[in-house]
């Protein structure tokens, strides 16, 4: 494989596909595909290389100012495991696809049901009865065909999580019960994979991502078990808002910012966003 060219060599090569926006060159998908063929690289890797030379794919040109080129290159090279493709998971997946995630593993054992229509991003009358992970994968590829997306119609448990976590750089917890969230954060902690947490009920959401508090649900709910799980009602505004906070916390980590033990609590009935401090006893084994 030939070495990826430098900025000076790229500009003539990409000339038919370039546009100058302000002081920054942008390149169309056609140009990215041209380089991907020439250098036998995945398109997402070509985009990451270009971004590191401050040449922006047109599809991300309007993200300038929201993310840095380095942050976006890291996201393109990142593999994110999304645990649950329902309310939070569907919106998180869509946001990540638009923001520039390169690789996802989507896991959900369920199919879309009529009761999901009020809040789940990829649930439509046409997708009722279809597996959530598969529907989500196909819809994301319509947004970003360069993504590497694996859809797994499985219930995550202690047995299958180690293999999936071993291939993930980060996991996003979109599961739907406190006990299952505790199981996931425990597996992620054992695998040393950072976990972004979120949960919703009615008009309120919680989000936390702090590698110094790797098991916040165990800290918040030390005694909660699977038997305590009850279905929680919520709507599209709550899941979208909470999904935004979760993805924002992930992007903050990609900028190298550390968490500080703060739990974001979001209440749309007022509406307000407050920061709460986790100060409970650390679960056994936490550093």
């Amino acid at each position, binding site marked *: 494989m030939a070495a990826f060219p430098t900025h000076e060599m790229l500009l003539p090569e990409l000339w038919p596909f370039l546009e100058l926006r302000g002081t920054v060159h942008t390149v169309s998908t056609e140009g990215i595909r041209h380089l991907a063929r020439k250098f036998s690289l995945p398109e997402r890797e070509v985009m990451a290389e270009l971004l590191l030379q401050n040449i922006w794919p047109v599809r991300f040109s309007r993200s300038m100012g929201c993310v840095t080129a380095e942050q976006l290159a890291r996201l393109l090279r990142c593999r994110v495991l999304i645990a*649950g493709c329902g309310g939070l998971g569907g919106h998180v997946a869509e946001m990540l696809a638009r923001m520039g995630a390169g690789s996802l593993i989507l896991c959900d054992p369920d199919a879309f049901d009529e009761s999901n229509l009020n809040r789940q991003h990829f649930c439509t009358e046409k997708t009722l009865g279809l597996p959530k992970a598969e529907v989500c994968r196909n819809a994301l590829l319509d947004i970003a065909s360069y993504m590497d997306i694996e859809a797994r119609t499985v219930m995550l448990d202690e047995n299958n999580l180690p293999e999936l976590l071993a291939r993930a750089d980060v996991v996003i917890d979109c599961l739907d019960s*406190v006990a299952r969230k505790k199981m996931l954060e425990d597996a992620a902690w054992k695998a040393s994979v950072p976990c972004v947490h979120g949960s919703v009920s009615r008009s*309120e959401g919680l989000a936390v991502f702090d590698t110094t508090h790797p098991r916040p649900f165990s*800290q918040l*709910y030390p005694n909660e078990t699977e038997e305590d799980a009850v279905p*929680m009602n919520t709507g599209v505004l709550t899941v979208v808002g909470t999904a935004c906070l979760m993805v924002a916390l992930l992007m903050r980590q990609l900028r190298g910012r550390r968490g500080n033990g703060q739990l974001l609590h979001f*209440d749309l009935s007022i509406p307000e966003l407050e920061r*709460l401090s*986790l100060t*409970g006893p650390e679960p056994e084994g936490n550093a």
Partner: protein
Amino acid sequence: MSIQIKLSTTLRDCVPGYVPETGLLFEPEDGPSVLTAGELARRIGLPLEEIKIVMVNCRQSDLNSPVNNGDTVAYFPAVGGG
């Protein structure tokens, strides 16, 4: 002085007429004595078994934590939907 109380999600159903914007104001009848968060919850009629998280002045606490005049206490049930 009084204690500001905030209720989350399903705990609001336990206090008819609860207004999220203002929460509840609790005036201790027996002067500025120190209560626990659990005692305060019992006095306003919350089922203690449904309270999973207690925050006193935005810091994680528990039902045994002391609550003083001027504090803000927030009670949460399990919030675990996804």
